[in-house]
């Protein structure tokens, strides 16, 4: 475990240096929160029908989405990307560590530092000025935190799949452009999942992406009762295991071709 923790710590420390990036990120998130809240308020304004989520819940959902944006696996980790692109992945094979674990630790750090840097300052803003509600109860709050950890692990497994695909395509942009729309739609970052059309709800509940932000957020606001938290966590855990297994076996094949081609 030690080498992975060391990679994690070193990367986190590096990312903390980028202060301006953090400030800019917060400003960015506030902007998007304000715009999205305005759009949804305008949609709710003339609608008489009862929706599966209230306007105030939707607004809380939007701000949570801004604060915890880093949970969404929409990019690759830059160091791993460069290692694969430049071909120095061969050197990483020489190290006495598990390649999948190494990449996983790196991407976990790349997600964790921005998550903390954004969420911590954005929460007070959103709570005080922009109409975000606090967690409905202590139980909901702890369920939400647990599900957030689950989301981090799940997201890193998804990103690692993209990393592994780079062994075959080299350039990650093609794969990313195909995965991003799927992740955006089915995670709830485009529209809160409960507001999606009824006929698609079954698929939405089955796919892994709801575990990234939608179910943690709904635990936070009590839209999913804290007593049902175990369902969310189990859903995340099963999908994480499945994706890690797929990633590992694909990595094994990728390394194999790499060796055959002589790096």
């Amino acid at each position, binding site marked *: 475990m030690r080498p992975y923790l060391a990679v994690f710590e070193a990367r986190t420390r590096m990312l903390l240096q980028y202060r301006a990036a953090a*400030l*800019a990120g917060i400003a960015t998130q506030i902007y998007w929160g304000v715009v999205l809240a305005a759009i949804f308020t305008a949609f709710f304004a003339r609608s008489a029908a009862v929706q599966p989520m209230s306007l105030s819940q939707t607004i809380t959902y939007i701000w949570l989405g801004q604060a915890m944006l880093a949970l969404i696996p929409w990019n690759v980790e830059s160091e791993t990307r460069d290692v694969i692109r430049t071909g120095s992945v061969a050197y990483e094979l020489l190290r006495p560590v598990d390649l999948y674990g190494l990449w996983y630790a790196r991407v976990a750090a790349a997600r964790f530092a921005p998550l903390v840097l954004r969420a911590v300052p954005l929460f007070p803003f959103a709570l005080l000025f922009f109409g975000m509600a606090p967690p409905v109860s202590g139980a909901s709050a702890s369920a939400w935190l647990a599900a957030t950890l689950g989301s981090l692990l799940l997201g890193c497994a998804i990103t690692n799949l993209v990393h592994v695909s780079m062994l075959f*395509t080299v350039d990650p942009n*093609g794969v990313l452009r*195909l995965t*991003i729309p799927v992740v955006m739609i089915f995670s709830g970052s485009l529209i809160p999942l409960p507001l999606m059309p009824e006929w698609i709800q079954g698929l939405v509940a089955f796919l892994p992406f709801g575990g990234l932000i939608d179910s943690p957020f709904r635990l936070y606001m009590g839209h999913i009762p804290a007593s049902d938290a175990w369902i969310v966590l189990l859903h995340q855990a099963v999908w994480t295991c499945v994706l890690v297994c797929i990633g590992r076996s694909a990595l094994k094949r990728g390394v194999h071709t790499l060796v055959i081609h002589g790096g």
Partner: protein
Amino acid sequence: MSYSLHLYGRLILIALRSRMQYPASFVMQLAGTALLTGTEFVAVWALFARFGTLAGWRLEEVCLFYGMSNLGYALAECLGEGFDKFAQQVRKGDFDRLLLRPCSTSMQVAGSGMDPMRLGRLVQGGAVLAYAAVSLGGAWDWLEIGLIIGCILSGACVFVGLLVLQATLCFWTIESLEIANVLTHGGNEAAQFPFDIYGPGLRRFFTFVVPLACVNILPGAVLLERGPTLGIPAWASWGAPLMGPLFFLISLRVWEFGVRRYRSTGT
């Protein structure tokens, strides 16, 4: 001027050629862009399906704004790629190389990249605008169609101007480019919907500072015969698209200022 354009053309051809070197990835990216921008519209459609109206605006009306904004943005993303990727050039220290040549820096940066993949957005914007035109535009005359085309080109000017400003920011820091992304991508996101749904701060910002409303809802509301919008009289709304080229020229001046600053800090 014509010499600059000629050089720009040569540079763009080169950029395109090196872009096409990985065809498999290229096809995937083109499809991906169309898919990604398509999903953005699916979200709008899904919300209209659930709520019926956006504070009194109908889907086809919103489609007019959405289509105009996205077409302008698509053109800008395609042509402004060099500015968009400028941070990489600065990071690698390649900007010095541009300064060593007896040509304008903005022309060289503009010529350093063009991203045909961005045209995936053009498809989506065009389709949405076509839908709006079919359901609204039976009575549009040539003047009004000219106004729409003018709005799209002018919108492209605003977005390219924003990309120039984003690139200028690289002379101060290459860490915080997201903030500029707010204005480009975020500006497009905001301009897809009628600006009158936003608070007064955002409304004024996008009218008087980054004139996206001037190339979108103001002339758009004239076409939809909505009367004065955002407190601007209709006659002014006809001229509002001129703000686009003006914004672009101003952004080029700011760029020159940034280059001067780069050369005095050398970072």
